[in-house]
């Protein structure tokens, strides 16, 4: 559109789909897994110029405004690609054992790879849609595709988790659609061309004329609907089961991309409410409420959690709650919440990587039985400890910084209640989870490991070390351009480009 030397936005959806097709042609499982990584990398490279331009303040529109990219979606797209590239690389390591022992068949790997790339395409569609209806279609497709990723290894537990996920999220998504319809009804007569009725940029431009009552009802439905996908309490009940039963790379994209995409959809509607003076406070208040509720619920369940993957899953509920809370605290809060989105995605991915491998090696996710993991498996054991400390907000990590900024925003807004609940929740979680993490990494071994397992190679070391290094660097020093990009994202939500 603006004469940039870059492939069209539609290509970003088509590229993973092409990779999907390739998976059905290839016959070697290892190659198929390699395709998932290559396709993720290529999509990221194809998106890079557009993402870069948008993070520097440009806005692209294509296909009569159906597809668009602004700073906010570009930022989420960038986070998503980071997580996908890391997780696809990790999938090669994770499935290696199952492949060589013959536990995983070619069909299963094909199923995994094509669904994986299909989810990438659907998530991309969600993020680059300017049309709220199209965004919904992307989100629904994500739900249906990822449901089968949970049961790559079929077991009664995985099936139970999948059914809960499928049903709860389908109902949630249906609610989101009702919300979309109500918002469309609130804009009746404002947008001349009925084909563009649901274009977000059009709605934003005409926001002051929206029917407040219908918009209010619409936002409620959207909040419950997409909030289910984002794993916000009290709609989070599918999340721990799905996260704990899915293969570890899938858990990583659940926490690192899908939950964020759900929240991203809510933010688009939140911006519409924000543009109406009589709804701005109300919608921000709801976000804060759900955020605090999620933090509290997570704190209660983490207190007694011995299953490593479930612990990480509840921690995702906590962090999505923190992000939602930040989003309800005005511009400084939004800035910090976006920063937190990146930090949580990186840290949580590494957490699932390490937990997944340890679970495979020890044959259990019970943290008590993993005691002494760091001595036996230095990379994965120490990785788990460091990533847990990082996402819990131990001092030099970027999570500490972003949580501190959110706290600061709450203090500046004179919200004592928010500060109290936030501090109490994060402290409880910090103490109970870090105690377990340290015991797991350095405690006395309780039982011998099941298989000796191949030694973690260079690739594994990099996968664990690089994101963690980035997290700890960002916590100490935030580069100017990065700060500028985050500020521009926050500006999109305030309605001022």
């Amino acid at each position, binding site marked *: 559109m603006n004469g940039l030397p870059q492939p069209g936005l539609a290509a970003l959806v088509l590229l993973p789909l092409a990779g999907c097709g390739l998976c059905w042609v290839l016959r070697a499982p290892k190659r198929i897994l390699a395709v998932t990584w290559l396709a993720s990398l290529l999509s990221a490279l194809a998106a890079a110029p557009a993402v870069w331009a948008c993070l520097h303040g440009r806005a692209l529109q294509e296909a009569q405004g159906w597809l668009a990219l602004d700073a906010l979606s570009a930022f989420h797209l960038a986070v998503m690609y980071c997580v996908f590239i890391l997780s696809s690389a990790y999938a090669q390591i994770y499935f290696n054992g199952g492949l060589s022992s013959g536990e995983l068949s070619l069909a299963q790997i094909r199923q995994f790879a094509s669904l994986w790339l299909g989810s990438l395409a659907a998530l991309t569609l969600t993020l680059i849609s300017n049309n709220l*209806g*199209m965004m919904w279609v992307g989100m629904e*497709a994500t739900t249906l595709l990822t449901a089968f990723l949970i049961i790559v290894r*079929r077991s*009664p537990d995985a099936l139970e988790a999948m059914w809960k996920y*499928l049903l709860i999220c389908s*109902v949630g998504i*249906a609610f989101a659609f009702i919300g979309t319809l109500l918002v469309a*009804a609130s804009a009746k007569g404002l947008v001349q061309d009925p084909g563009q009725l649901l274009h977000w940029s059009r709605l934003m431009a005409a926001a002051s004329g929206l029917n407040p009552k219908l918009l209010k009802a619409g936002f409620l439905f959207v909040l419950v609907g997409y909030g289910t996908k984002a794993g916000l309490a009290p709609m989070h009940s599918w999340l721990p089961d799905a996260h704990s039963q899915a293969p570890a790379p899938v858990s990583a994209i659940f926490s690192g991309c899908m939950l964020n995409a759900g929240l991203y959809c809510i933010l688009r509607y939140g911006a519409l409410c924000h543009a109406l003076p009589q709804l701005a406070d109300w919608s921000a208040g709801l976000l804060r409420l759900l955020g605090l509720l999620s933090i509290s619920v997570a704190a209660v369940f983490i207190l*007694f959690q011995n299953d490593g993957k479930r612990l990480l899953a509840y921690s995702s509920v906590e962090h999505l709650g923190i992000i939602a809370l930040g989003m309800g605290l005005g511009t400084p809060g939004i800035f910090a919440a976006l920063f937190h989105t990146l930090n949580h995605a990186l840290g949580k991915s590494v957490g699932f990587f390490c937990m997944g491998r340890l679970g495979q090696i020890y044959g259990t996710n019970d943290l008590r039985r993993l005691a002494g993991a760091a001595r036996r498996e230095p990379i994965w054991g120490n990785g788990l400890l460091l990533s847990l400390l990082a996402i819990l907000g131990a001092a030099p990590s970027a999570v500490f910084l972003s949580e501190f900024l959110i706290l600061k925003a709450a203090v500046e807004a004179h919200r004592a209640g928010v500060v109290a609940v936030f501090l109490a929740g994060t402290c409880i979680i910090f103490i109970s989870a870090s105690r377990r993490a340290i015991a797991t990494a350095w405690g006395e071994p309780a039982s011998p490991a099941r298989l000796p397992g191949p030694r973690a190679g260079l690739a594994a070391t990099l996968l664990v070390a690089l994101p963690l290094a980035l997290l700890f660097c960002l916590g100490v020093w935030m580069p100017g351009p990065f700060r500028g990009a985050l500020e521009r994202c926050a500006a999109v939500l305030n309605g001022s480009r």
Partner: protein
Amino acid sequence: MNAWSELILILVILTNLLLVGGNRLTGLIRFAAVQGLLAGLLPLLAHSQALTARLVFLAALAVALKGVAFPLLLGRALREADIRREVEPFVGSEFSIFVGISLLAFSFWLSEWLGIAQAGWLRLMLPVGFFTMMTGLFLIISRHKALTQVLGYLVMENGIFLLGVALVGEVPFIVELGVLLDAFVAVFVMGIAIHHINREFNHMDVHLMARLKE
């Protein structure tokens, strides 16, 4: 034309009450099929202006999916699962009917509160849409079997379809198409899931699937 659409809407209310009170699975699938058929026909009557090719195509697709394809899929799942045909609700059918009637009243109140003054019989469409959607939700929450839950999801989708016609009328074509296809895939996916569940557990009683909890 008005009389016809009013009749259809009243029939939709009736199917909802039958769905809530019914206790034979085959019967429930039939009610849902009739409801889907009725819902699919409504857009043709909802617009007083001339019938466009687009409108006819969408209505035909909706009728084919909601009235024919979904019930067939569910019927097949039912035969394959070879389960007892009773619904076995968590709550009795008298109580269910009572809940149904309360939901109907609530839907009328909600539509009044939203305060969109619609001309004539469109006033009826919004509450019926809400009622159908909430009936579906109630079926999902209150029934034991995975199959009944899918049925509830279908009813919910019917309700959303009606809401779409009542609230917006002209949703962009591609979105409407996407929604219909999504519902189709969702039901299809749920059918496959039921197949797996049935094979793995030898039943599809959701309340017996309770291994994953704190």
